[in-house]
């Protein structure tokens, strides 16, 4: 069953929270809505669930227009960030509640609850109450309650954010596996780009209610549509340099970079990821500066360089607004070493260069 947001907008009074969001999932797809707080991602999810009305636009589940349909009739199951378990009911009663509301027989409820509980390894905990469970166990109860309904779509609102880091990684894998096995379309909201990259079939990046890009994790990483996406995805974020472009080269106070693009532009931003750069001898390099810090990450060393003259910038996502980032990041092999404050040069790989116009839009050749 596909989920469609057909040019959906939402305003609370005068505040516009979502503008003309247009997204269609595939059948059985894991779609992630990614964005910072206030980007509108949770509102979009709640509109699919029917917990918020639309100001304009339509919501479709399968072929059905559910824009005016009550939440309980939409056949979607939601996992809330706080899990929203019923505190006065046992685990078995929590999981079985949707079936009980539907009017299933006692025996049938017990059977299906047992089946789902085994799938998420909760069968030993069926008589416990939510307050007696750990965070991970509660999360599995919430998941089981959604699964038992076999809905047309799963909706998940940052379900992993209340777990500690180690458990989060484990549950991520489990979630992906479960979704793959069940084949149920899932719309998943998160602010964590690593979660988005690892879980999603496709990612929809939202900022201030506007869709920035919709694509596979690889597409948004390699081929960002604008500076916001480029700066949001990737850890550490993409380096951005502000300057001019002429005669096939990018020029600013830190140096010049050959791009091969034959365009003349007064204001341009050059983006390059840390792994597409290399620290080289300062005399022959494209850019030059001083080594600010070295951090051993484990499998690589992250070098931070303060460039001569110009200051690296970071786009905030609003048109024409740049804030300064202090240093230029370069990923070096794990055995790289050099004295702090040494003069260094930086070379960039041409295929890693991404150019953006003065207002942040991606310039494609």
């Amino acid at each position, binding site marked *: 069953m596909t989920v469609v947001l057909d040019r959906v907008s939402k305003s609370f009074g005068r505040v516009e929270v979502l503008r003309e969001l247009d997204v269609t999932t595939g059948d059985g797809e894991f779609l992630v809505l990614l964005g910072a707080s206030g980007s509108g991602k949770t509102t979009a999810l709640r509109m699919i669930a029917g*917990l918020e009305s639309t100001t304009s636009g339509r919501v479709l589940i399968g072929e059905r227009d559910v824009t005016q349909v009550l939440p*309980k009739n939409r056949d979607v*199951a*939601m996992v809330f960030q706080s899990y929203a*378990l*019923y505190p006065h009911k046992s685990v078995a009663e929590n999981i079985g509640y*949707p079936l009980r*509301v*539907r009017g299933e027989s006692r025996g049938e409820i017990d059977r299906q609850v047992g089946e789902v509980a085994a799938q998420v390894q909760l069968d030993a905990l069926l008589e416990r109450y*939510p307050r007696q469970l750990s965070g991970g166990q509660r999360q599995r109860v919430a998941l089981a309650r959604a699964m038992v309904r076999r809905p047309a779509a799963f909706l998940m609102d940052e379900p992993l954010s209340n777990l500690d880091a180690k458990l989060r990684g484990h549950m991520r894998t489990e979630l992906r596996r479960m979704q793959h096995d069940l084949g149920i379309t899932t719309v998943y909201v998160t602010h964590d780009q690593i979660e988005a990259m690892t879980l999603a079939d496709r990612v929809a990046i939202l900022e201030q209610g506007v869709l920035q890009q919709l694509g596979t994790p690889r597409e948004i990483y390699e081929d960002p549509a604008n500076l916001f996406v480029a700066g949001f995805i990737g850890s550490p974020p993409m380096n951005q340099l502000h300057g001019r472009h002429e005669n096939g080269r990018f020029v600013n106070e830190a140096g010049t970079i050959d791009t091969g693009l034959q365009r003349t532009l007064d204001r341009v931003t050059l983006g390059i990821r840390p792994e597409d750069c290399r620290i080289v001898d300062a005399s022959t390099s494209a850019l030059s500066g001083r080594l600010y810090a070295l951090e051993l990450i484990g499998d690589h060393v992250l070098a931070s360089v303060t460039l001569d003259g110009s200051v690296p910038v970071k786009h905030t996502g609003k048109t024409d607004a740049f804030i300064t980032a202090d240093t230029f990041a370069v990923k070096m092999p794990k055995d790289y070493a050099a004295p702090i404050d040494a003069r260094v040069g930086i070379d960039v790989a041409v295929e890693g260069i991404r150019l953006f116009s003065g207002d942040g839009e991606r310039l494609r050749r």
Partner: protein
Amino acid sequence: MRERRLGEMSPLTKLVVYTLLIGWSLVVLFPLYWVVITSVKLPGQVGDGPDYLPFIDFMPSLHAWRYIFVDLGSDTFRPYLNSLIIASTSTVLAMSVGACAAYALARLHFRPRLLSIVLFLVALGIGVWMIGSGLVGWPIAAASGLAIFVISVLALSRVRSPRLGNADILFWVISQRILPPVVAALPIYIMFQQIGILDTHLAIILTYTTVNMPIVVWLMYDFFASIPIDIEESAELDGASRFRIFREMVLPLAKPGLAATSLLVLILSWNEYLLALFLSTAKAQTIPLLVAAQNATRGPQWWYMSVLIVIMIVPVVLLTILLQRLIAKGLLLGAVKG
């Protein structure tokens, strides 16, 4: 000297604190003790005195108890039964209506037009004037007022008007209780007289329900609002109707609040004197009236009064003990984590 833990008191502090606590307990409990022993004193002993200890200062006697239970018999029993019926019924009604109202105000969004409210008051005024002028009886006046209201609202439905919200409705409901009920005693008396239900259980039950319902709304609103809304949203997505959510999710989670509020309303109804005095004569007399009636022409008959007071207190004390655990949880209700 051993280091003191945070919160642990020095011996001197402990002495002071416990002295104050014991002192205050005596202040609170002594009147109860006094009433109990007064109920076993002879009239003469009440007048002389004060005598504090039975069997030592005076010989207790059961004459007052015998009088109240045997001689008066049904004259005691009837008001007691009336109080039981009236207090429990009005509490159940006030809680039912009030809890539903509080939940609606906590979860639904009302935006009544100020214009509609003004029209309602105008129609009400017209209806009252019609009754006052004596032209028509009250059923016709009521029907006319209602018709005027409906027609004017429909006619002016396109006129723009500022809108009020839940907070305004909540304040209006609560403000009904700020007004002392006795202010409305005379109008209520005349109204019930016209309908012919004076001196009946129904009259007092209706009055108490109306008077106590704002308190229920006032207290239950906070309890309902503090229940995490995603529990209800989750139940909604699971397929439950609004009423089912109220019954199966909200009410069980608000049990401490419901217990505390019920007890408060019950106590208010049980002890209420002035409105019961207005609205009853003989048949619907409640226990507080009987207690006050012991203040006869020969002066207050403390011994009989004390017996009545003791039996009046007993049900409330028992109920409080039964609900005590629930109420303590309700008073200390912190964040409900889902």
